[in-house]
């Protein structure tokens, strides 16, 4: 536009709300398209710094990932959602090895005679290993810090167990679907109840000893029993997963869960 520009005095008057209405309108219309005149507006450094400080407060907050957004959409509280979303990062190595182990089991099942036994042995143990790495001194690098927060203890343990179980169970189900003899949905989930029972057992045992040790004991017991059964010539260790046995697994699981809840209540 032509030569008209604000004088410093006009700018000061305007900023101090001393301009009359018509001048104010002119100034505003001019400021809209004249950047040099805008710089004439007196800037209150203190006010600018304060404004930016509180803006920075919001701007610097980490953006929420898709998992976290999904979880908080599902009705979880913001901090719980963040915790659950962040936990799998702690076990990236475990997640990777789980994929490798399950892939190996699948290959064995497809290539070797009776190779699917390997999957049968492993499927319930995989989530257990994850839980073993979920909580405790020596496993979590930030355990000392985490243990003094109000979240620590049972609550954190259960939250982390859940966040480990979900990917573990999903991976195992996916692998089970790829087994050579999978024909029905039943074949994909036969290991689920034993697996959950093992996890619940190790959590209960973890009340008295270190969680990793507890999971180790429970896992070793499971492998030992299955090994003995298959070595003693029983052709079908899969009998452990038969519908009748599933009933017993279900009873065991609910008993263990009941005990866990009871202990958590009294703790």
């Amino acid at each position: 536009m032509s030569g008209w520009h604000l004088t410093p005095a006009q700018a000061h008057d305007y900023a101090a709300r001393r301009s009359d209405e018509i001048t104010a309108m002119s100034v505003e219309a001019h400021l809209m398209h004249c950047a040099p005149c805008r710089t004439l507006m007196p800037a209150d450094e203190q006010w600018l710094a304060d404004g930016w400080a509180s803006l920075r407060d919001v701007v610097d907050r980490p953006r929420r990932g898709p998992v976290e957004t999904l979880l908080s959409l599902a009705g979880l509280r913001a901090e719980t959602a963040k915790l659950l979303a962040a936990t799998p990062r702690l076990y990236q190595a475990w997640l990777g090895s789980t994929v490798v182990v399950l892939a190996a089991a699948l290959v064995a099942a497809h290539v070797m005679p009776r190779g699917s036994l390997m999957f049968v042995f492993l499927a319930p143990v995989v989530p257990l290993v994850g839980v073993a790495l979920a909580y405790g001194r020596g496993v979590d690098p930030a355990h000392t810090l985490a243990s003094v927060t109000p979240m620590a203890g049972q609550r954190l343990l259960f939250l982390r167990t859940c966040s480990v179980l979900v990917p573990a169970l999903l991976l195992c189900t996916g692998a089970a679907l790829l087994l050579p003899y999978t024909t029905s949905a039943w074949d994909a989930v036969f290991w689920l109840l034993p697996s959950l029972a093992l996890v619940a057992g190790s959590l209960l045992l973890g009340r008295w000893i270190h969680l990793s040790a507890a999971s180790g004991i429970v896992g070793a017991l499971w492998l030992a029993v299955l090994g003995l059964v298959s070595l003693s010539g029983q052709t079908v260790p899969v009998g452990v997963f038969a519908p009748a046995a599933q009933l017993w697994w279900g009873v065991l699981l609910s008993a263990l869960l009941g005990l866990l809840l009871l202990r958590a209540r009294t703790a």
Partner: protein
Amino acid sequence: MKLFRRAHRRAPSYGPDSADPALLTAIAAGEAEALEILHRRHAPWLRARLNYRCSDPDQVDAALQETFLAVWKNAGSFTPRPGDTDAGAWLWTIAIRQLISQLRRRANRWISDIEAEPYETIGDASAEETVLLNIEHGPLGTALHSLSPELRAAIQATVLDGLTVREAARILQIPEGTVKTRVMRAKARLREALTS
């Protein structure tokens, strides 16, 4: 696992002297420093102008805060017209809308937030509005003097501030129909004064 981590988008280089569109591109790429430069450049005049619309400095500050947060979130939606190196009009549009929703929130907390209206740069004005936007030149100033304060306020809200009739009604606290008639009467009065 690093493979899966979101690669940081390359932000264009920018500095305290960069033009607004370059800064906004950087902000869209997540550069907080670019937002700081933009804040330093535009907050003072926006504050001064908002102060004429609302006498409560706290509300003005809150509206400004919301404005720059909106910029942080929506910087990608800024599309400069060709040859335009200035985001002043766009920022003003956001700021005045934020002020309106701020005032509204304060007044009726129980009414849900106003439905978001898209931020459009004002400027695609009709011929007579273009004349009005050049107030500082020519005889328009004297013509405006002859208007009553009510008519002037209506013109100011709709033409200068670029508000819709609905928004103007909200900030002036009069019904929408009244805004319309006042704007029409004011324009007729101005035309008369300018052509006679």
